[in-house]
């Protein structure tokens, strides 16, 4: 029993984080800001990576510039604007609402609205109450009679 507990306890070790901090910040808040920014900024060279993941020279340069800017006390938005000034909206993974990108934001909503509208209209049409009067009954009988005669002739 003792051995079993011991061997089970071996499984409970926490994993050590192998990553060492390459950049040193004055406050934890700055480190967090840096971390967030490098994940949100896109590497202009290897386009499907953020600058935290990329090994391209330009990504390294951008990381170092982000460190400088964060240490100087710039807010997150200020750093993002700084990069957009140089590399265009492209450099940020969160595109702003502009006439060119409007379709990205509007289209999904529009599709949902149109889809639901379609369902609702169909539903209404299907659930229209049938009315049946004596007149209709007379008309129906007449039509049946006519049909019978046609078949016989």
């Amino acid at each position, binding site marked *: 029993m003792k051995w079993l507990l011991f061997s089970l306890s071996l499984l409970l070790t926490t994993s050590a984080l192998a990553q060492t901090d390459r950049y040193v910040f004055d406050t934890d808040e700055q480190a967090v800001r840096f971390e967030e920014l490098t994940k949100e900024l896109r590497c202009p060279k290897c386009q499907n990576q953020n600058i935290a993941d990329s090994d391209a020279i330009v990504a390294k*340069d951008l990381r170092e510039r982000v460190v400088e800017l964060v240490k100087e006390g710039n807010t997150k938005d200020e750093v993002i604007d700084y990069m957009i000034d*140089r590399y265009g909206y*492209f450099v940020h993974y969160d595109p702003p609402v502009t006439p060119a990108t409007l379709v990205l934001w509007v289209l999904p909503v529009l599709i949902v609205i149109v889809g639901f509208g379609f369902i609702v209209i169909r539903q209404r049409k299907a659930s229209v109450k049938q009315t049946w009067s004596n007149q209709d009954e007379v008309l129906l009988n007449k039509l049946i009679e006519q049909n019978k005669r046609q078949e016989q002739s």
Partner: protein
Amino acid sequence: MNRKLLAIAPLLVFAFVCVFLYQGLFANPREIQTGRIGHEMPAFTLPDLMQDNKQWTNEALKGEVYLLNVWGTWCPTCLAELGYLTKLREQGVKIIGLYYVQGYDADFDGPFDMQALRTEVQDMLERAGNPYQFNILDLHRTLSLDLGVSGAPETFLIDKNGTILLHHTGDINPRVWRSKFAPMMQELK
């Protein structure tokens, strides 16, 4: 009428998607980095690549239309475009080189070997043609970052007032020159 419209709606959507995806096939994903167009050349003070004690500033470059070509001897595409750029120089286009040093890190590499770089550049320009009036050395890629450069080769067209008019990523060949640069150069004359 309404029903007919509804019937062809899927076809319309399909056609739209086709057109959208088709033009995506030929779109160049590197064409969109246009952060600095319409702005003035960022302020800088950087040394000349070939001469000691010579410094270039953004102010010193004003007054003439010129191309700023970002390049390096380590970059094969830059080597490939040197010939055509030299032809352009012969036609009277002023081209200034911005030498992009590939990944130099003072902490790892020790002092920068300027002499070795100069010899390398001279050799290459003698072999492939020299389109440059002069070269500015961007050792720490600071001006490159301010210009939104992501690699080499890249070329900027700058007017007399120092305003950036064009930012082209990739090589300059006759096709690119005709479609992108020539019309603008014509306007500037």
